[in-house]
Structure formats: C-alpha cells, structure tokens
C-alpha cells in the first residue's frame, strides 16, 4: 500500500441556517503532512469529518486516493477506511475494552489477527508511543490525559494506515506532554510513510508536525503555505492568529 493523496474542491456544508464550510479547496500530496489552522468553530473538525465520510457535505468533491468519497457506498467507504487512521481530540477510547483491545480494535474486528497475536502487537505499538506493555491490561479510565492520547495514537497507527488524521492532538496537555505527543506523531508518520492531516490551533504543535499549513476562517481556506513560515507569512490574518495577537483583522464576534 502507498500513501493516499487528498483533494477537496468547493466543499460546502451547512447545519440549519449556519454555513460551516463555504467552498473549501485543499490539496494534500501523498506522503506529505498538512496542518489545518483556525479558530474554534471555524470548520476544521467538520472538514476532516467530511473527508472521513462521517459527515456528508452539501456540495463539492472530496477525493481520497482518487476516489470521490461522497459517492462511495457505505461498504466501499468502510473498505477505504481500512487505509485510514484517526486520532480524536478526546481520544474516543472505548471504555468497555482494555487498552490492548482498543489498540488492536481494527485488526481484531476484521479478524486479521488472533487475540493472542493482538496482545503482542498492542505491546509493540504501545512501546512505540512510550508505554509499557502492562498498560495494555488497564482500562482507559485508569489512564491520565497524556497516556490516553498516546493510546489513541497507538490505536490510530496500529493497522499501519496510509492516511492519518489528527484532531487537536495536543489540546488539554501540558507543553512538555504536547511536545512529546508531537514527536511521536512525526515518528509514526515517518515510519509508516503515510500522508497526515492535522487540525490544531496550537502554533508550536503546527510547526512541529506540519510541512504544509492551511488556515480556515469562516468556512474558507484563506491561506496555504509552508508550516515553517507561520507567524511571518505576510498574511495579516494568519500572522495575527499565529502570534496570538488581540489586534488585527480577526475580531471576536458574537457567535450565532
């Protein structure tokens, strides 16, 4: 399997009268890492949920590996999902299963591995994210926030996906743990040779995990460029956001 490219053209999505995505265009080359930036409620999460097929867009084309995911049947979408992984903002670990079953869930659900082999595979992947094999026997509720993020990362990469999504991977973590998670993300993506799409509003994290960056504001992509340029892009909106400045073109507004 090879890394998957992603292409969004004119994607629009409204919830009731509220337009969340207003013609989003994004190109992500195979084997590259894109970070989508934007304030809370700007449409970042909806964008990746549309790519994953969890939300159906109202308009536009979304291609993953050349296939338009908006037109795939449920079965074909689940098959394509085999090649994707996702780290959710809050981890979304399954409370009813121990950590090792969470990590190898996809492999076990598809009977690609026996339960005994899954324990070994879970220990191997947990080691890659800096967790001891003994953590595998714990319940997710027994873990700290940082450990839950690591387990969620382990689950996202355990089936060796070709395209990985990271939703606010450092939210709620202290700066050191955030840097550790970012380092693990970069290691995992490089090891797998996968394409990565992350969303965040943490600038330090964006520079660490992204090669390319795109900023979304009011449901539109307003800038794309190299993640290393963040803060010095020459785009007043992006630079204000990247520097966390109060004054600038982005103003706090009444939310509807």
């Amino acid at each position: 399997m090879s890394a998957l490219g992603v292409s969004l053209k004119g994607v629009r999505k409204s919830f009731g009268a509220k337009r969340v995505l207003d013609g989003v265009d994004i190109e992500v080359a195979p084997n590259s890492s894109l970070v989508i930036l934007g304030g809370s409620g700007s449409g970042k999460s909806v964008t990746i949920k549309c790519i994953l097929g969890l939300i159906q867009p109202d308009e536009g084309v979304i291609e993953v590996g050349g296939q338009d995911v908006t037109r795939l049947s449920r079965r074909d979408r689940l098959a394509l999902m085999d090649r994707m992984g996702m780290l959710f903002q809050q981890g979304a670990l399954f409370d009813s299963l121990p950590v090792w079953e969470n990590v190898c869930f996809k492999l076990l659900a598809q009977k690609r591995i026996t339960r005994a082999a899954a324990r070994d595979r879970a220990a191997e992947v947990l080691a890659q994210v800096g967790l001891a094999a003994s953590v595998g026997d714990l319940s997710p509720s027994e873990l700290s926030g940082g450990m839950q993020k690591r387990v969620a990362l382990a689950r996202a990469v355990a089936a060796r996906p070709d395209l990985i999504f990271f939703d606010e991977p450092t939210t709620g973590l202290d700066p050191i743990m955030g840097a550790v998670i970012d380092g693990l993300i970069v290691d995992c993506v490089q090891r797998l040779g996968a394409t990565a799409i992350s969303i965040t509003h943490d600038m330090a994290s964006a520079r660490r995990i992204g090669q390319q960056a795109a900023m979304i504001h009011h449901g539109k992509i307003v800038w794309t460029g190299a993640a290393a340029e963040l803060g010095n892009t020459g785009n007043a909106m992006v630079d204000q956001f990247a520097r966390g400045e109060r004054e600038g073109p982005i103003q706090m507004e009444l939310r509807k």
Partner: protein
Amino acid sequence: MVGAMLAGIGRPVLAACESVGRLALFAAEAVSHMVRPPFHARQFWRHFVEVAYFSLPVVALTALFTGMVLALQSYTGFARFNAQSAVASVVVLSVVRELGPVLAGLMVAGRIGAAMAAELGTMRVTDQIDALTTLSTDPMKYLVAPRILATTLALPLLVVVADILGVMGGYVIGTMKLGFVSAAYLDSTWDVLEAMDVISGLIKAAVFGFVIGLMGCWYGFHSKGGAQGVGLATTSAVVVASILILMLDYVVTEAFFSP
C-alpha cells in the same frame, strides 16, 4: 388564518411521520445486520448475560411479590361471591398471560433500556461511535444489532422465571395463609393452564425485548448535546419503551385471545 392553523397541525404530523419512518429504517437495518455476517458474538454474549443474568433478581422479586399480592387480592375479592376456589386459576392465567411479560418488560426497560441509551449516548457525545467507523467497523452491526438481539432472546427466558416465581408466590400465600390444600391448589393451576397461554406470554416477551433494545439503541445512538442530551435520551428510552410495551401488550393479546 386557516392556512396557519393547518400548517400548525401539519408540521408536527409530518415530523411524527418522519420520525416513525426513520425508526422503522433503523429497526430494519438492525435486523438485517442480525442475519448477515460478520457477527460480533462476543458483543452479543456480553449483552445477553447483562440482560438475562443480571436482571434476574429484580424480575424474580417483582414476579414473586406480584403473585403473592394477586393471590391475596383475588381471595378477598372473590370471597364476596363465594368464588375463592378460582384463586389459583386467576393467579396462573394473570401471571403467565399478562403480568409476567409486562412486569418483566417494564423492569428490564427501566434497567437495560436506560443503560443502553446512556452507554450509546455517552459513546456518541465522546466520538466513540465515529471512532468505530474510522476503525472500519459499522456501528449498527457492532453496537446496535447485538444489543437488540440480546434483549429479544433474553426477555423470554426471564419471563419463564417470572412465570414460575409468580405462580409460586400465589401458591405460598394460598397454602400458608389462605388455607388452600397444596395438591388442590396445584391441580387448579395445572388444569386451567394451556400451552397457548405460555406461548402467547413468551411471544409477548420477545416483542417487548425487541422494543426495549430498539428504543435504548435508537435514543442513545441519536443522542446529542453532552450530559443533558444523554440524560434526555435515557429518560426517553425508558418512557417510550414502557408505553410501547403496554400498547403492544394489547395488540398481541388481541391477536391471540380475541373472542
């Protein structure tokens, strides 16, 4: 004026029709996953044990005391017409045909329907259901189908236990308090009981079990809005399942025993 009034009536009617249609499609999809592989046997067994085994105490106690009360009430009521000898017959027919399935259904709706709605609702608002999809697993097949199948198959077993304990409760009160001779009470019980009484009760139980699982999954699966949404889903699952149990009780009774 008239147009606005008609629109005011039409909107909720259309909304209700849409909800019923969505629920029917949800139920049909769940049933289709029960008969199409792959099957998640481990999930099914986990929920079957939760329903059939861990609901036993509450169902057993409810049935036992209901049988005891029924014997006592029937005796004092029938004494006015010198018809005390009918107590055993009334107890067994009431328990097997009606009270066993209905009370077990209501107890399980409160216990399991609420738990299912709360668990699935929490999974929904914490992105666990979306996570399942990203792990190439259909949530309807993994979460919904095993739960509905488990309640549908487990409730008849619970009703068998409820029937036995309900009749036993009546027997205990009849023989120890009301002065019935043990053999005569048991003879009256067996003489009046027919296979169709038991079968109709078990079919009712399966229908109620399906409804409990369906409502718990439906409200939990479509929960939104955080803790408040989960609470609302839980309450709705129990209330709607309880009302449907009482309504369907009439429908099944009509089908079996219409004169």
